[in-house]
């Protein structure tokens, strides 16, 4: 149908704002790190916008219903998340970047690349699907051994949801076992993405405050030239 598909990363525009991403499997501690980062940046007077995976209101109603009723094939799963993401890119992320804000995204296209490929979707297709995404200033990957992440998540004996546990893949009838197998496969995908997209790897087994100091140190030089609301200058 097509010649050479443009893959994610092509045709990127420059915006005055900054876009920072945290990625990693469940239990890697990335959301905690992003929340702490936001507090620091706001304290320094920068305008900060949070953007979460799977949070566009109008699309979410469809996604939630479909997930409850187990309606999603791998392709539909991939496309409904791309729809949600596209809505956020157009109406939240790009306008904020144009306005010179710091956009912090908890999960980004890499989550789709990892999960959808584990579900059997063609890797090149899903990379092309997300070609419209804005390129991040930097994306941080919180690397954590599978057992550590599983302990963090499963020790609370959560009720794992159908898709969250990867039950649609038919790996194992027990949700906890299915979840383990699913997360192991996602982890393997993330490891290939690190090199492919130059993700900055964070050691997510270190104490929270150690990770946070390193995160701030890496981000600080990327803020030069950015306007804050006050007189303050960022320091770690």
């Amino acid at each position, binding site marked *: 149908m097509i010649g050479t598909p443009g893959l994610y990363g092509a045709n990127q525009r420059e915006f005055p704002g900054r876009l920072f991403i945290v990625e990693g499997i469940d239990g890697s501690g990335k959301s905690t790190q992003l929340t702490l980062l936001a507090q620091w940046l706001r304290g320094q007077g920068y305008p900060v916008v949070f953007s979460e995976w799977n949070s566009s209101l109008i699309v979410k109603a469809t996604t939630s219903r479909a997930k409850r009723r187990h309606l999603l094939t791998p392709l539909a799963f991939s*496309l409904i998340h791309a729809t949600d993401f596209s*809505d956020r890119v157009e109406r939240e992320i790009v306008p904020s970047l144009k306005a010179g804000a710091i956009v912090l995204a908890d999960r980004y296209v890499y989550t789709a690349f990892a999960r959808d490929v584990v579900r059997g979707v063609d890797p090149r*297709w899903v990379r092309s699907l997300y070609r419209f995404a804005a390129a991040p200033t930097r994306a941080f990957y919180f690397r954590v051994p599978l057992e550590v992440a599983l302990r963090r998540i499963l020790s609370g004996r959560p009720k794992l949801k159908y898709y969250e546990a990867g039950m649609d893949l038919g790996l194992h009838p027990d949700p906890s076992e299915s979840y383990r197998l699913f997360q192991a496969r996602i982890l393997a995908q993330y490891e290939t993405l690190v090199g492919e997209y130059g993700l900055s790897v964070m050691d997510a087994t270190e104490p929270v405050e150690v990770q946070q100091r390193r995160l701030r140190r890496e981000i600080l030089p990327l803020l030069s030239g950015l306007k804050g609301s006050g007189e303050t200058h960022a320091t770690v």
Partner: protein
Amino acid sequence: MRPFENYGVPIPGMDPAELTGWLVVVEGTDGVGRTTHVNHLRTHLERQGYAVAETGLTRSDLASRGIRRAKQGNTLGSNAYNLFYATDFADRLERQIIPALRAGFVMLTDRYVYSLIARAIVRGAEPDWIKQVYSFSLQPDAVLYLRITVPDLVPRIVANGGFDYWESGMDLPMGEDIYDSFIRYQARVIEQLDGLAREYDFETIDATRPEEGIAEELASRVSRLLETGGRRGRA
């Protein structure tokens, strides 16, 4: 007969060799009479003993409700609409079209990816990108394109209840008057469909003629397809 092919990207978990039915697409712009002709074709084929199934845009269990809600408020970004339609299509492909083909039905579809691609391009999507998005779709056995020009289309629209907001491209900056907007928008959609007709080898049918003539031509084309195997039957 060769098995069905995709436009480059396989569907996870689907074996094309299992699909024993036929996929026949009726394409054309808004108001050209597609639905009427799909109904005629269905009757014609059932008389000949074929089992027929039908689908059309935004009829998926998954996304139709969400698309309707989003349109009411015009609340989604324009690229998000493109992808919401793609989600709807993927759901119908996997849960309506493929099961019918597996069961040996003639699947008549009232529009296919081509209309979705045309509309997305008119709304600013990159042509290569949106075609790549739909590259998981099955190549149909035939695409019967009901072609009309804008001047011939206008009286039909007026006679059938007037101009629709979306069919007039009123979500685009094409002029405030719905008539002017309809003219410009439909001209661009038809231009895109004409381009796709060449690219994807549609069978173009002059839709400005009386209904019976068109119905006869469609019926004979589909009958010939089912006898000869069409594209998949050719050496």
